[in-house]
């Protein structure tokens, strides 16, 4: 699906069409004013006709007030259209983002996506608003002024014709020079923020190593580069305005001189020269407006491209539309020759086969990069397997409706993140309609009941962004509570007790075992103590299964497992 602005504009047809018309009408009043004023100078004054002067003045005032009304109406149209389109666009991009699967999301950083929804859409908004306000006015004034000037005197108008390309050329040159620099400004700013962010987060280390001076020097070099590039860009833009006014003023001088010759031979009046000069400034102003519009369009072009990046993404994990019949009983899970790779080059899970019976407790252990997390992420289909298949009750998980599959499988991620809201809203993440008893049960099982009930607002306590107002251990426990709400058939805990002390970890495992008897529990861990009671332990090493069995048998048969166990217990 390619992104186009057009369909979005369709919803705002009326203001989109009316806006430029209002502006057009306003522009007419702008154009008429100097003509009428010229009449005062040319006819009123020489004839000494007071009532003529009064009439014209009143007409000008009325016309301008009407023009003001049109201007406001146009403003309203532009605001409605631009921000309306922006709103719809933001909604659609965000909706699109939610449909993407992890493989696509991995390609973009959070800020890259956020900036697209906010800033790139903003850029489109500005462009639409500017277009409605300028598209009729600037070209109309430009053409109108030119025509009016030609009517007054053809020869003098030639000066106008000469000025226009000069002004446009100026803009073009400056733009050519500055546009790539703007990218550099942004990149350099990124560097300045990055050095600062690193300094702040590593402030303790910097001090421990006595590296303050070195840090300041590091900052200095990026900061100075940022300054230099800014001064460079600034210099280009500070040239623009004086040159522009030089060109326009020069044209005025020429108009006066050539005009004087014309007047002397009787082809022109004094008042007409005054109007002529007025038109000239009008033309210059319109050209500037048009050039600005073009700059905005160019910038919007890159924003549209960035938005399009998202729209063209196709989620790699697709759901079957049919609802899946799921039993109330816990299913059997089977991995059959499963391989998985993030990039298609290196397999992080290699030809893995494993059968998990209903209600079993399975431990998965292995070093960093052994493929533990990757393996469990395959079950709720965060990623598709590259080779082989995963069966739930004998049926390939790709044939399950995604929503139903994810109702069966619940996961506690490695990184304990909560959402801003309340504890309650977080607990209801899996099941909106969960009862209070169920939530309380989840809190008790996850060992969070104590600290939650100690809070003055209990379960209604506010959770700040990411859960930053809770300690690491508390967050971890709450994410476990969140995962057990809604009665999952399969529960995956991906190294989810690393921030808990042994004692709490133990209580947690006890409680899970007691309360979720029928649930299949998959523990991913680095600690043998956390999983040694499991019915089945899978030992991974660089994506390969090097051992499956219970604690005792693995100690005897699996070298890797023994090594891990010894390192932690001797």
């Amino acid at each position: 699906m390619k992104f186009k602005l057009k369909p979005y504009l369709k919803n705002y047809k009326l203001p989109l069409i009316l806006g430029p018309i209002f502006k057009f009408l306003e522009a007419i009043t702008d154009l008429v004013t100097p003509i009428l004023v010229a009449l005062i100078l040319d006819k009123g004054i020489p004839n000494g006709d007071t009532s003529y002067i009064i009439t014209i003045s009143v007409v000008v005032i009325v016309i301008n007030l009407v023009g003001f009304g049109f201007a406001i109406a146009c403003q309203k149209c532009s605001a409605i259209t631009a921000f309306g389109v922006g709103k719809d666009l933001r909604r659609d991009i965000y909706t699109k983002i939610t449909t993407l699967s992890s493989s696509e999301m991995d390609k973009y950083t959070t800020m890259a996506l956020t900036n697209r929804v906010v800033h790139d859409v903003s850029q489109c908004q500005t462009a639409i608003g500017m277009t409605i306000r300028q598209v009729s006015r600037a070209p109309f004034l430009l053409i109108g002024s030119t025509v009016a000037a030609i009517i007054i005197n053809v020869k003098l108008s030639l000066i106008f014709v000469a000025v226009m390309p000069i002004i446009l050329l100026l803009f073009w040159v400056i733009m050519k020079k500055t546009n790539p620099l703007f990218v550099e400004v942004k990149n350099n700013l990124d560097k300045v923020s990055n050095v600062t962010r690193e300094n702040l987060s590593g402030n303790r280390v910097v001090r421990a190593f006595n590296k303050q001076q070195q840090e300041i020097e590091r900052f200095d070099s990026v900061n100075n580069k940022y300054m230099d590039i800014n001064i460079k860009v600034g210099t280009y833009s500070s040239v623009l305005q004086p040159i522009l006014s030089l060109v326009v003023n020069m044209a005025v001088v020429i108009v006066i001189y050539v005009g004087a010759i014309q007047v002397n031979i009787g082809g022109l009046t004094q008042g007409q020269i005054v109007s002529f000069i007025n038109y000239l400034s009008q033309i210059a102003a319109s050209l500037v407006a048009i050039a600005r519009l073009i700059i905005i369009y160019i910038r919007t072009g890159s924003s549209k491209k960035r938005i399009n990046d998202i729209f063209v993404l196709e989620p790699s994990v697709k759901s079957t539309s049919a609802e899946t019949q799921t039993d109330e009983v816990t299913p059997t899970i089977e991995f059959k020759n499963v391989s998985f790779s993030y990039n298609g080059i290196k397999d992080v899970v290699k030809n893995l086969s494993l059968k998990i019976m209903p209600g079993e407790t399975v431990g998965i252990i292995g070093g960093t990069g052994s493929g533990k997390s990757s393996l469990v992420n395959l079950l709720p289909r965060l990623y598709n397997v590259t080779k082989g298949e995963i069966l739930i009750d004998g049926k390939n998980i790709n044939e399950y409706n995604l929503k139903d599959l994810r109702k069966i499988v619940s996961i506690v991620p490695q990184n304990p993140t909560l959402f801003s809201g309340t504890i309650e809203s977080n607990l209801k993440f899996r099941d909106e309609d969960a009862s209070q008893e169920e939530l309380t049960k989840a809190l008790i099982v996850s060992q969070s009941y104590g600290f939650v009930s100690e809070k003055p607002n209990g379960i209604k306590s506010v959770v700040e962004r990411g859960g930053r107002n809770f300690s690491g251990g508390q967050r971890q426990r709450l994410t476990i509570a969140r995962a057990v709400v809604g009665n999952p058939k399969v529960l995956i805990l991906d190294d989810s007790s690393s921030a808990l002390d042994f004692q709490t970890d133990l209580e947690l495992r006890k409680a899970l075992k007691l309360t979720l008897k029928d649930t299949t529990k998959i523990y991913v861990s680095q600690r043998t103590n956390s999983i040694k009671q499991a019915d089945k332990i899978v030992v991974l090493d660089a994506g390969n299964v090097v051992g499956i069995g219970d604690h005792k048998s693995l100690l005897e048969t699996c070298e890797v497992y023994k090594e891990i166990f010894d390192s932690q217990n001797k």
Partner: protein
Amino acid sequence: MAKSIDKTTFAVEESPEKSRANSIAKGRKKFNIKNIFVQTKKVLAFGKPYHAYLYLSIFGVFISTIFDLLIPVYIGKSIDTIIGQNLVDFDLLIYNIKLLLLFVCGSSLFTFMANYFSNVYCFKSSSRMRKLIFKKFNTVPLKFIDSNQHGDLLSRMINDVDLLTDGYLEGMSSITNGAITIIGTIIFMFVLNYTLALVVMLITPISLFICTYIAKKSYKLFVEQARSEGELNGFLEEYISSDRLISCFNYEERAVQNFEKINQKYYTVSEKADFYSHFSNPTTRVINALVYIIVAFVGAMLAIKGKVSIGLISSFLSYANSFGQPFNLLSSEVSELQAAVASTDRIFYILNYNDEPSDKMSKVLASVDGNIKIEDAEFSYTPKTKLISGFSLDVKQGQKIAIVGPTGCGKTTVINLLMRFYDLNSGAIYIDENNITEITRDSLRNKYGMVLQETWIFSGTIKENIAYGKPNATMEEVVEAAKLAGCDEFISKLKDGYNTYISEGGQNISQGQKQLLCIARVMLIRPPMLILDEATSNIDTRTELKIQSAFNTLMEGRTTFIVAHRLSTIENADKILVMNKGNIIEQGTHKELLEKRGFYYYLYNSQFEEV
């Protein structure tokens, strides 16, 4: 861990929009002329080394404005020589045109000069401001860094400095320009014709009042808009970064619903703000048009009586225009100034923070044996909650002290005190008989090697990261340290080896590998005392085994404080400090503590109890 650490670890970057809204909102409360004046003086102090640029810029503005004022006069004069057929005074016309050309070129030249120098001035002083802020980050007590959100500090350095530059420094040149234009225009107009001058002078400021009124009205909406945009940003940042959870929990539709609420709110506010803010432009234009016609009208009446010429009316018409411009400009700059005032406060919040007390006069600690004595230490982060009190400890050279306790017990506090990131409230810490408050911080800290659980990697090559404490280390030394830390293996597998570029957010190395690099960093400098955090969560156990032996070699003969998670470490420690809720509640050897049957006993047994 201490709550101070929580803040550094979980600081989420505040979006610039939000802080902008906050700064505007704050500024509104304090907005008054006197405040602006005081602030301007403070801000100008930043640019002190570059004041020559400022003077050059003001000079440029001054001259170019005078030229700008002369241009319409001579256009008018020129037109007056063109009376009609065969009535053109070419000698006078050419004389006028020559002058006009001079003014036109002069105006452009000096405008460029003014623009250029004000630009240089602005960027040089804002750059200096950033540098001062950055310096400050490295000289304030660590407490300041721990207790402020990093995103916010960053936003003060980046956004607020920009807002300040826009508001004051750039505002200044337009204010100078405006003031000279207004004064000059008034003088010129009165010289030419005082009746017309009075007309222009009396009517034009009306647009100022109206625009200020509109600005005030729309300003409120802008604050709301900025706040609403901050909310939008925050939502997206939060939800997109946790996209996986949203998929896993079938939360997509509800997420879109939540988004729509914020999106709709933003639309309502921003549409309104946009509409009202665009009100002032047509308003000033219509008022200018009115002034224009009134000047034409009054001028025409005077001309009929033969009191003024048509050329003079033409000059006046353009004065009417240029007299209105600065008012438009000033009215539009009010809101920027408001934001700048708020930003200045936010910047000075950092700059006015007291530095760590100077230790220039203190003694430099030469080589140490590593005997540490803590006497009756008392410490708390905030006066309200007491943490450590009456804590004494005697550590002999080469001893190993294990710190144990449940999650969040405050183990980092001990590190903070030993390395003097924080000072004791009372009591003293001695290293080889030297009170640590009497020696320089630098010489104290470089006696310690520290490996924290939160890894810190800066953007640079692997080699640079390992050689952080010893930048002139040879390649051999770096590789040696990497081998000892057990990270040589993965480094050599990388395409660029030790020259691989890495960064904190970088995807190319794992969390565990980062930890190994931090260990290699300490391996390289081999300090006499160590502070180690046994992090079990990030490094896989097999690698940990290798590190363990490396640590053991490193610890040989060195005094070590170790935040312990591993049983073997605890059992072999010369002394164990048991911490809970920030306090050191028990201390002794493994055996002593077990016999005591206190908290440690409970903690120890929980690990081996069977499920």
